């Protein structure tokens, strides 16, 4: 019994990481209806950037965030203004296919530069430290990851609903023409949204890299986990996305408990069940 409870707790904490994968995806879709197929590859790119930073400067991965986050945000802004803004419109094909091309480019650039060997970020003591919560042993890193996920989502929520930047995001999302009349340059606003999303991606990438080993090919899988968390939670609801990540994480750890081969499969099946029973997700956005 305690074993199963342990698996559930691990799953909940894993869900925090998936919510971080999902948050950027959700933000971008909310502001500009863009689904970025390269999202997972960008997470892996951030992990590699963290690796290079820790190796070159000899700093802890958490400190590397100070460099990787602004770099990823800058990359996001440049990518949006340089490429992705040109794909936005009524037709869904251009953004989809362009980000798909981007995904292949990033994946192969990483392969060329870092080879296919699995790598890991050296987290030091925090990786192995654990706490005993009433008989259930919980790793400090997963706990920290979950805490960061909650903080990131609370932060995004604050930006979205309490700041001038967030008002701009929502206005552009509602009506691009009228927002432009209010002096908002939508190309710039979209650039800022992508910058913010990739800053979150940087956090997700570093935490992923400390938790498990990674290689250039695993981006697609991270995109799928993030996507599943978004759909399970319900579109347009960031807290729902966290819940979606948790459900996905728990399904995976329970699946793994039955047979290690079932871990990922169990997550996909949970997603398909939600899609069958509640196609709008468990917590769709209610207009307030």
């Amino acid at each position: 019994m305690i074993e199963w409870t342990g698996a559930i707790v691990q799953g909940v904490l894993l869900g925090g990481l998936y919510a971080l994968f999902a948050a950027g995806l959700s933000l971008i879709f909310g502001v500009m209806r863009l689904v970025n197929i390269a999202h997972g590859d960008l997470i892996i790119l951030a992990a590699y950037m963290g690796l290079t930073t820790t190796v070159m400067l000899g700093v802890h991965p958490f400190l590397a965030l100070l460099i990787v986050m602004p770099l990823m945000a800058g990359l996001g802004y440049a990518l949006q203004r340089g490429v992705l803004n040109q794909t936005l419109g009524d037709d869904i094909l251009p953004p989809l296919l362009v980000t798909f091309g981007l995904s292949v480019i990033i994946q192969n650039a990483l392969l060329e530069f870092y080879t296919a060997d699995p790598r890991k970020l050296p987290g030091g003591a925090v990786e192995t430290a654990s706490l005993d919560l009433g008989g259930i042993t919980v790793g400090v890193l997963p706990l920290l990851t979950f805490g960061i996920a909650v903080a990131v989502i609370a932060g995004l929520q604050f930006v979205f609903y309490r700041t001038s930047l967030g008002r701009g995001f929502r206005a552009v999302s509602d009506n691009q023409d009228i927002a432009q009349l209010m002096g908002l340059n939508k190309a710039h606003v979209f650039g800022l949204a992508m910058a913010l999303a990739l800053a979150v991606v940087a956090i997700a990438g570093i935490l992923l890299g400390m938790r498990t080993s990674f290689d250039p090919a695993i981006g697609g899988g991270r995109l799928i986990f993030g996507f599943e968390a978004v759909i399970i939670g319900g579109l347009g609801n960031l807290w729902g996305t966290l819940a979606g990540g948790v459900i996905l994480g728990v399904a995976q750890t329970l699946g793994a408990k039955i047979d290690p081969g079932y871990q990922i499969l169990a997550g996909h099946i949970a997603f398909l069940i939600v899609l069958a029973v509640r196609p709008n997700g468990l917590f769709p956005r209610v207009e307030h």
Partner: protein
Amino acid sequence: MPEATLTLSNLDAHYGDFQALYGLDLELAAGEVVAVIGANGAGKTTLMRSISGLLRNRPDAVRYRGQPIGAMRADQVAALGIALVPEGRQLFPSLSVEENLMIGGKVGRAGPWDLGKVYELFPILEERKAQASTSLSGGQQQMVAIGRALMANPDLILFDEISLGLAPVVIRQIYQALPSIVGEGMTAMIVEQDIAQALAMSSRVFCLMEGRIALEGRTEDVTHDQITAAYFGVEA
């Protein structure tokens, strides 16, 4: 003669193969209030979209205080001090009443208009400020749309069909508020199908027909028959 606030010269506008405006020439002096009238499809909204930058044009087709703005983006035009109250209100549904007003002030131009002054003009909005803009009545939504444009402290304000779809009593209420707005020295262009309201407010009138100016004159000079003729395209 003082420099014109707005000058349109040989302004064309197209939607794909369809031409909506044909070589419009028009000049607005500072502080002037003009009415633009015309039937549905005459090109009134297209004119508004062309001035505000939602439709791009040749640079010199639209000049604002001598500066060519015809090719600018709408946000650049807004930053220069031109605000549009769009047809159909077009509030942001995800934003509350107060947030809709605040986003109007985003361009950050100095001037008399701020939240307090808008609430003074339309007190009902202060009571409703935390509500979703979609929960308001049509008239209240129009107040928000006007307030949102004023928050930008524009020098030139364009009103597109602000009486459309509103009850007569509400229209009267809105038009009662207009003199206190344009009294602030603003230049204004009022596009209306409600001719009586528009004429009462303005010193000059332009009548559009099929993308061309069919009639132009001082409000007190044009006769009812002339307007009818220009409006419907028949000799009265």
